[in-house]
């Protein structure tokens, strides 16, 4: 770059220049490696700290006790039960709807303003801050629809958050399937829906599953929207059981119950000044982290396997 008539004559200057550039090159290589290593170590230290701080609490009592004013005996029973029930609602709302919307956009929608409009909306919804969904749910589900601060409301709220993730991963999975699979099915007289359900969706299942797991992992850790709809932070009772001993063995009273979830329980304990509660918070955080990392890990592994295995 800095080569002009003068220093072309001066070979030494060129050698120096090359040396300098090579030096810059290895300096950056060092800096890059250092940055990545530092970040990795910093995050590892943070997570280890969480696990070590929370370790003394990690026993069965912690999972089977209600929260309490005394930090020592407090547990996360109502929180993990609440989280599980909310996730059940989220799953049954977001998955069918998200997969259906993904199929529609990829297989059915004709190119045009309508498909474009949906596509733009999905892309934007993925970027809307989660707390905005909380406000939507507060205005719409809690007050317009009168669902109150219930498990149903929380489940619906989180399904709104999960929907874009499921739609996008369904579309990506379907897009990767070559046309000849569809043509073969059409050639033996299958209808469009039969082609989609029996063939396209079968091959896309791995990718769809990846999106569902990532979406669920995100729903477990979401705090802000659930706080916004007015979830209580201190709950010392369980919602009515979904399974009963009288016919038809299932009841839906739990949908209407008050609840708390794991991240809110953690938030509540962080906000207290006493150190003993911070230990509880760390233990809860460790539970959340392990759950989400595990789920995301499975999803990433799954996606990696699909990419490797399928050769059309």
């Amino acid at each position: 770059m800095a080569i002009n008539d003068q220093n072309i004559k001066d070979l030494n200057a060129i050698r120096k220049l090359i040396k300098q550039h090579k030096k810059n090159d290895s300096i950056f290589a060092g800096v890059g490696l250092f940055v990545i290593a530092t970040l990795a170590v910093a995050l590892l230290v943070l997570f280890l700290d969480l696990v070590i701080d929370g370790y003394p609490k990690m026993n069965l009592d912690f999972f089977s006790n209600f929260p309490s004013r005394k930090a020592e005996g407090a547990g996360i029973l109502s929180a993990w039960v609440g989280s599980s029930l909310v996730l059940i609602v989220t799953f049954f709302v977001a998955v069918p709807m998200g997969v259906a919307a993904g199929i529609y956009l990829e297989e059915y929608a004709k190119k045009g303003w309508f498909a474009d409009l949906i596509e733009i909306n999905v892309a934007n919804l993925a970027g809307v801050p989660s707390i905005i969904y909380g406000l939507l749910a507060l205005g719409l589900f809690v007050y317009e629809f009168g669902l109150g601060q219930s498990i149903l409301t929380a489940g619906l709220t989180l399904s709104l958050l999960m929907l874009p993730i499921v739609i996008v991963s369904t579309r990506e999975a379907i897009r990767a399937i070559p046309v000849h699979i569809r043509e073969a099915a059409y050639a033996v007289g299958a209808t469009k829906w039969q082609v989609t359900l029996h063939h396209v969706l079968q091959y896309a299942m791995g990718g769809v599953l990846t999106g569902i797991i990532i979406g669920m992992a995100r729903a477990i850790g979401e705090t802000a929207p659930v706080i916004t709809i007015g979830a209580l932070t201190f709950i010392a009772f369980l919602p009515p059981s979904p399974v009963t001993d009288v016919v038809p063995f299932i009841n839906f009273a739990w949908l209407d119950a008050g609840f708390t979830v794991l991240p809110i329980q953690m938030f509540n304990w962080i906000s207290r000044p006493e150190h003993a509660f911070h230990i509880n918070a760390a233990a809860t955080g460790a539970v959340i982290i392990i759950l989400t990392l595990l789920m995301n890990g499975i999803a990433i592994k799954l996606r990696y396997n699909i990419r490797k295995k399928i050769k059309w």
Partner: protein
Amino acid sequence: MSKTKSTVSKALAKNIRRNFVERLIEWALMLSGLIAILITFGIVFILVTESIPFFEAVSIKEFLTSTIWTPNFEIKNYGILPLVAGTVTITGIALLVAIPLGTITAVYLSEFASHKLRETVKPILELLVGVPTVVFGYFALLLVTPLLQKIYPDLPTFNMLGPGIVMGIMIVPYIASVAEDAMRAVPMAMREGSYAMGATRFQTAKTVVMPAALSGIIAAYILAISRGIGETMIVAIAAGQQPNFTFNPVESAATITAYIVSVALGDLEHGGIGYQSIFAAGIVLFIMTLSLNILGQWTRKKFTERY
């Protein structure tokens, strides 16, 4: 003869039913797609209708220009600026951390790292994007702030510096991932041309790959800003929830998101002005993030069209 006729009409009947079911399914699928549009309309509708009474009580001019936000005091003031200042300051600190670290990580992974290292680091980045923010809030309040207090003893327990730094660390994987994708999308031929001229990897990265991927990298930054502005739990936990018109990182302050959380944690009186004010704050937040997202997607799209 009559036998064939009946089979044909049976087949026709079956066909009609089949077509009907197909139509029905197509409609059902379309309705699901429609949900995406309905949610967007729902957000705008709820934010606007719930905050109309608020703007009847508080003029838009006061809302946008007053520097005092005291909805819980005797004399109530509703100026959004303190909340915006808190949001901007914390996001700014986060970007100061995340942009250099994220960019360096992206350049290193895309241009320097061996295939094996990249294949190891990329999934870890994806894993980190999934870490719940309430956990990062714990780190900000109980780990990073005490650490900063050792260096700077006057730092209050609730400040903007700690959560800003932690938010920055949280955003690094996000920037690194999007920027790396952009740089990897630059055609190999351009690098080869540069190497053939005797350029080093760093020179190639700096003068060929990064300029070529610039709009993709900028899109990563813009999307990161939007994420920082919308981030809630880290700031709600570690920055304090007192609205404070300041850009000083060592003071405590509230962001728009932290204000919404603090109101939601208290007893919400449906229809009260406190309840309405969170929707007014929500509108500001929604407009800020939406415009950044649209800008970011537009920049990224422009980039993908080029290659």
